[in-house]
């Protein structure tokens, strides 16, 4: 791998991140889809918690879940399904034709998606905090940053892997995003501590959002640790393992997808 190739791939990451970062904010429909709609769920859970007399931290759990749901939606709809849409628009064959690794294209999508979605998640968090007058207790900022960035890394790694898998599985596979969306809200404890799900939580720990969200709650709220599923250090370890596994699988399936594209000629043809 020479220097020129590395620079080209770095430029490709930047190039592919650009539409996500800059252009996504040219259409303001995201304010409804990514802020108002999650806020409605947050308000519903918040109201329920208030009615049941739960502690204020539970409102915080729901707000944090609402903010993090923006990343899950981004991974499902703008990562996992994206290569399928790229194929339909004809972009995919131009990506394969370019003298770069397809990993750079997906990394560009991921980084752009993360940046754009961070803005949306922050908006949900700020509005939710103002509505419910939340109290945060910063337990350990290093761990907090580690958990947050590892969650994003593992989550987008999962998105990169699914992007290739959806394409390999066929043209209807992107509908799986619809299937995954709501159940993951439930099993990853988007609006409540996953501890309440018992052993289900161990299985749902394969979804980075589950352990990531649990870790963030433990590090941001007083009662977070009381309702924590696993210790933060174990959750950090799980997130590191998930990041590595999903990243490796993403690279493997991306190569497989490109090979199949060239062997069968189907993956780059729109109507196949």
């Amino acid at each position, binding site marked *: 791998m020479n220097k020129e190739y590395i620079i080209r791939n770095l430029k*490709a990451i930047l*190039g592919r991140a650009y539409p996500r970062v800059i252009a*996504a904010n040219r259409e303001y429909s995201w304010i409804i889809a990514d802020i108002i709609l999650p806020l409605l769920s947050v308000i519903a859970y918040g109201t329920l918690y208030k009615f049941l007399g739960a502690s204020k931290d539970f409102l915080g759990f729901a707000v944090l879940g609402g903010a993090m749901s923006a990343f899950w939606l981004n991974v499902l709809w703008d990562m996992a399904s994206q290569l399928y849409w790229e194929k339909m*628009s004809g972009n995919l064959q131009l990506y394969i*034709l370019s*003298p770069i690794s397809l990993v750079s294209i997906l990394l560009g999508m991921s980084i752009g998606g993360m940046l754009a979605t961070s803005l949306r998640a922050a908006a949900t968090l700020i509005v939710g905090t103002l509505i419910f007058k939340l109290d945060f207790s910063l337990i350990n900022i290093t761990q907090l940053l580690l958990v947050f960035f590892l969650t994003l890394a593992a989550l987008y790694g999962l998105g990169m892997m699914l992007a290739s898998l959806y394409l390999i599985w066929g043209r209807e596979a992107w509908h799986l995003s619809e299937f995954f969306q709501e159940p993951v809200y439930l099993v990853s404890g988007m609006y409540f501590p996953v501890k309440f799900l018992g052993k289900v939580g161990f299985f749902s720990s394969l979804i980075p959002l589950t352990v990531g969200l649990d870790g963030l709650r433990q590090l941001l709220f007083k009662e977070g640790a009381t309702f924590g599923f696993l210790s933060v250090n174990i959750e950090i370890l799980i997130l590191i393992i998930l990041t590595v596994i999903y990243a490796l699988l993403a690279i493997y399936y991306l190569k497989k997808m490109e090979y199949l594209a060239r062997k069968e*000629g189907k993956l780059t043809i729109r109507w196949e």
Partner: protein
Amino acid sequence: MDDSISIKTENLGRIYKKERGVLEALKNININVNRGEIFGLLGPNGAGKTTLIKILTTLLLPSSGKAYVLGYDVETETLKIREKINMVSGGEWAGYGILTVRENLWMFSQFYGIPTKKAKREIDKYLEIFGLEEDANTKISKLSTGMRQKMNIIRGILSNPEVLFLDEPTLGLDVQIARTVRSFIKVWMKEKEGRTILLTTHYLNEADELCNRIAIIDNGEIHALDTPQGLKKILKNKIMYSVELERESYLNLKELPYTTKFTVNPLKDGKIEVKFQIQDENKIVDIFNYLKNNGFNLVSFRKREPTLEDVFIEIVGKEFKEDE
């Protein structure tokens, strides 16, 4: 591989597996495309043109045989090939509708590692050449088909490829824009020595105007390969006529005695144009009489030079339908 050759194929074949059996899209293709040449692949839809281009651009693996671009093997040396080629297809809708023309072009330039400053300079230069400078900041979702195709051509040449693959580049474009594209292709080729274009088209005039050499392809096979003039020489001993006729609307011309390779094209105002070959020029009067006796009034006639369409019919044995 000889340095003067850009593209070489050796018994290249490609099959597609279908639900029932296989489709043989390419059969033993052997071509050598020289550096500095515009090489045309002429054939109807489904002839195998796009399959060949996809193999040469490393998007598809051959099922048999070998193919080389600039001396590199399309199966194993993909990166080296991809660094030196680009491709533009007709009817291409690549890019992101939410980005402007300039932003889309910049994005694609980054995949080739072009420094941003240089990329922007080149983009502005080509936008001006194609008359798109006023639309540089327009979102591409707002562009017409013709404008979009101009943008696609700019995308294809921004990386300054040594070999440019143009797959039906004027497909669906209006006459004026297609002419602009063809003019640009000629200028671009002259701009720098050693550039090569492999052009697929089913527009016969386009192939005739642009190509140094043409391969006629049908059903996955190359039927002839020569310069446009060389191909037409195949018909040098044939006598060809084009006849314009008026007719009652219900009349169809299904046969014409003494002729071979006769084709009928509808014209405006209910007229038809009939093209045919004859062996014996003395029979032309009998042909005109036959037409008159069968309800067709002669408007005009001319003895004509062979076209690539005639060559295609002669070689492949069937009419060349551009809208096939």
